[in-house]
């Protein structure tokens, strides 16, 4: 479970998240809201990329402030632009990056990378240069690179924003099939229709928290 306790966040003088407390235990959770409403800051607090200015964030009873390494092992993060998270020039080498950081044995790395390539339909691209992949393939590679370390939770920061309809659907299917808990920051309302819970952010606060249908209605009302 992910727990926010009296959390707020400021960038200098500007308060981007007003104090809130929250528990996230569902399997598919979406976060929607206008640009600048605090969604991405909220996402980055979950895996310790940002520390709260006040309050505490707990991931499975680990405080993100004092357990940075363990928390990042539990929470994977898929960024909006996969180009900015693919680190190695070759597909299979990039997937192996997370495992190398965990000091996994070379033989085991090879097996797990092969399985991950197959899982995300990338086997035929294993030796390909990452910068030559299509947008959808890059997003699949980014997801493969994150899931290979077997995190319990995965945060997706606008994973379909840069994709065409076919690739949006591919990413949606992929998220749907994941065993891990997914927390998806998005503007893509089709993606979240079947989610368990949706949070609507507005000007740094949680304006609505509930089922997708009601959350989407509230979001559309706010955007009108």
């Amino acid at each position, binding site marked *: 479970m992910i727990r926010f306790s009296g959390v707020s966040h*400021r960038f200098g003088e500007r308060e981007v998240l007003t104090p809130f407390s929250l528990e996230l235990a569902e399997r598919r959770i979406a976060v929607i809201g206008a640009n600048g409403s605090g969604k991405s800051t909220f996402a980055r607090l979950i*895996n310790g990329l940002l520390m709260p200015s006040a309050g505490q964030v707990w991931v499975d009873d680990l405080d993100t402030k004092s357990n940075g390494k363990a928390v990042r092992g539990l929470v994977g993060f898929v960024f909006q632009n996969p180009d900015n998270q693919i680190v*190695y020039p070759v597909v299979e080498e990039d997937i192996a990056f997370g495992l190398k950081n965990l000091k996994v044995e070379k033989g085991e790395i090879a097996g797990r990378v092969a399985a991950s390539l197959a899982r995300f339909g990338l086997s035929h691209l294993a030796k390909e240069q990452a910068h030559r992949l299509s947008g959808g393939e890059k997003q699949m590679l980014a997801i493969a*690179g994150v899931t290979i370390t077997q995190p319990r939770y995965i945060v997706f920061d606008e994973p379909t924003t840069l994709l065409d309809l076919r690739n949006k659907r591919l990413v949606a299917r992929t998220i749907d099939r994941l065993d891990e808990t997914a927390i998806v920051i998005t503007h893509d309302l089709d993606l979240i229709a079947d989610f368990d819970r949706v949070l609507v952010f507005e000007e740094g606060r949680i304006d609505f928290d509930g089922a997708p249908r009601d959350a989407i209605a509230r979001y559309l009302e706010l955007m009108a």
Partner: protein
Amino acid sequence: MIAAYRPGTSIVHRLPAGAKIVGLAMAGTFLFFVANVASLVVCLLAVLALYPLAGLSLRDALATLRPLFVILVILVLAHAWLNGWEVASGSGLRLAALVLFAGIVTLTSSASAMMGAIETGLSPLGRLGVDVEKISLALSLALRFIPMIAAVGAEVREAQRARGLDTSLVALAVPLIVRTLKMGEEIADAIDARGFGTTRKDGPDRST
């Protein structure tokens, strides 16, 4: 090296990347001591013979030399003017042989194999407090992001041409630097998120 690697199963591919890098260093040293033009021609032919052995064509060899062509011509002409044609042709042959050898190494070794070899080679420095893993990651990032920065540059130039602006170094540099810095920030976050090191964000929030 950025996009050069050609996967294969040839004997040259199967050699450890570290051995190939050491071979390149030895060849460079050896070529430095060969002064005779005929011997240098033999060395050049020997290096060229490695291309088919690695399953590569002579066109690949020419492609390896192409970016160096202008420098090679300038070098040969300068030497011919200053030291005569024998020294000039020797220098040209030596440089061409060395670049072709380096081409063989990069065409037959994956980036991770090269990084692994460099990491192993530098590992004794770890005892002196040098973070070898970080050096290796920095090299990988350079290989990964040079084509991306080139693509951003092309995008900026295209956008400027579309708005009627001719080539201007300042107009190109400013958006390119801004976008590269922003990209760098996201990449740093991604590297943290993927578990590399733990020190950057373990301290107080950087934003406060």
